């Protein structure tokens, strides 16, 4: 039951990364990010309950507050003020991007097979999932032209790293985890300010506009 729930949570996180590549509505993408955060929190919670570790439970609570609560809230505020509610021009067409995501997933599973074989356990089986999320999210980051979707891509990427960190370390250091979380929050806040500056300056969130000179 434990390994199945763990697999399910990891799976939901990976599917969320793929769906973020498909959807165009900015609000939907932010919601997908929140769902992925929830899946990561569930993984931390499962680990904590199974190994009877309080530190993991605190991490789970922190992830829940930060990735399901604060960050999506901040981002949905940005979306509400955005001039355009959709990311209309991904630089790579969506079908191609999805096929690329499929290839990246297979690569991630293939490349991390040895890692899983080192110590096969329900936890280590999530390592390839985490890697797949990292690759797919990074691809999304490259494929999108909108400041907000790029920001979400960055956060999805970070979620993947967090997932790998959670399942690969035997005993996660609370201080390290909190430090990373705080860094992340700071980055999001800075980028939020940046996007709102962009909007007031250019009236759009399209990053291509930054390459042109304007006065």
């Amino acid at each position: 039951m434990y390994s199945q729930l763990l697999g399910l949570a990891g799976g939901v996180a990976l599917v969320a990364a793929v769906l973020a590549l498909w959807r165009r509505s900015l609000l939907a993408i932010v919601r997908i990010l929140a769902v992925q955060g929830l899946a990561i929190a569930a993984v931390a919670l499962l680990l904590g309950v199974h190994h009877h570790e309080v530190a993991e439970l605190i991490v789970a609570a922190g992830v829940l507050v930060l990735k399901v609560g604060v960050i999506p809230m901040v981002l949905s505020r940005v979306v509400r003020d955005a001039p355009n509610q959709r990311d209309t021009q991904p630089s790579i067409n969506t079908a191609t991007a999805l096929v690329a995501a499929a290839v990246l997933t297979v690569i991630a599973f293939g490349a991390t097979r040895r890692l899983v074989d080192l110590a096969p356990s329900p936890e280590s089986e999530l390592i390839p999932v985490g890697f797949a999320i990292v690759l797919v999210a990074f691809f999304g980051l490259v494929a999108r032209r909108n400041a907000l979707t790029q920001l979400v891509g960055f956060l999805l990427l970070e979620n993947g790293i967090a997932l790998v960190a959670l399942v690969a370390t035997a005993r996660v250091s609370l201080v390290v985890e909190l430090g990373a979380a705080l860094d992340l929050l700071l980055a999001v806040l800075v980028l939020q300010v940046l996007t709102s500056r962009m909007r007031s300056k250019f009236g759009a969130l399209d990053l291509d506009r930054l390459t042109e000179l304007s006065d």
Partner: protein
Amino acid sequence: MNPGRIGAVVIQIVFVVGAAPLLAGLIRQVRARLEGRVGPPIVQPWRDLRKLWRKERIAPEHTSWVFLTAPLVLVASSVVIAMIVPLVTVALPLDEVGDLFAVVSLLLLGTVFLALAGLDPGTAFGGMGASREMTVAALAEPTLLLAVTALAARAGSTNLAAIVNAALDRPSVVLSAQGVFALVALGIVTLAECARLPVDNPSTHLELTMIHEAMVLEYAGPDLALVELAASMRLLLFGALLANLFAPWGIATGTGVVEMLAGTVVLGMKLVLLGAFLGVFEVFVAKLRLFRVPELLAVSFVVALVAVTASAFLGGGR
């Protein structure tokens, strides 16, 4: 061959043919109720079929044998599928034939014939519908194969009856992350293959978006009745396969009369639940723009591929 096994095949065929229009009627009824309409009674599709059946058989000028054969091929392929896939019981005489690849190719046979029949009269709509149908089929069939392969990898066989048996023995075959992915992928494929929302709207004839209706526009009378019957049979077969692969509990494992009767009742209940769910689902979704349909199917393909990859790399059957 013992009479119980032949009886099982007969029961499956009778069930599929008899219940398919009722399932379509149920979905319409649920939709109508949720939209605040009274809606046609559940047996209305059967009445429509009877009415169509009594009419004169007529084919457009300059059509070839393809046009008249296609409805028969469509119904025949569905009947054959009803004979070989485990619906009411897993103990079927044609067990070895009930392979995943056989079933998918039979489905594709019907699809191809219908597309050819759409092209045959040479009308603009028919050709348009056929081209759209083939676009959807070309993307949906690989996903269908992949999604079931994810289960097959864990069950150790591509035989559908063997997969259902393995799932009955070891629930972990379907109750896993891979199983959930396969279910999502197969669900999307079912919607696409059966021309339901959000891929196609079965209740309108809007030229900009229709797929299935565009192909069968030239059919009338008994031929139309056959096409409609085959379409609802496919919906039922897909629904029953979804139900039996992912929730096999209740299917008969032998060919005893009581056992098979219970299996039929359980299958009927599963299908009623599924039909009600589909009806509710269709109220809440809008049709996708046509050029976003391949993207939806690409999503289901990726999900199916994730399921297979996970099954292959992370050791099956654990």
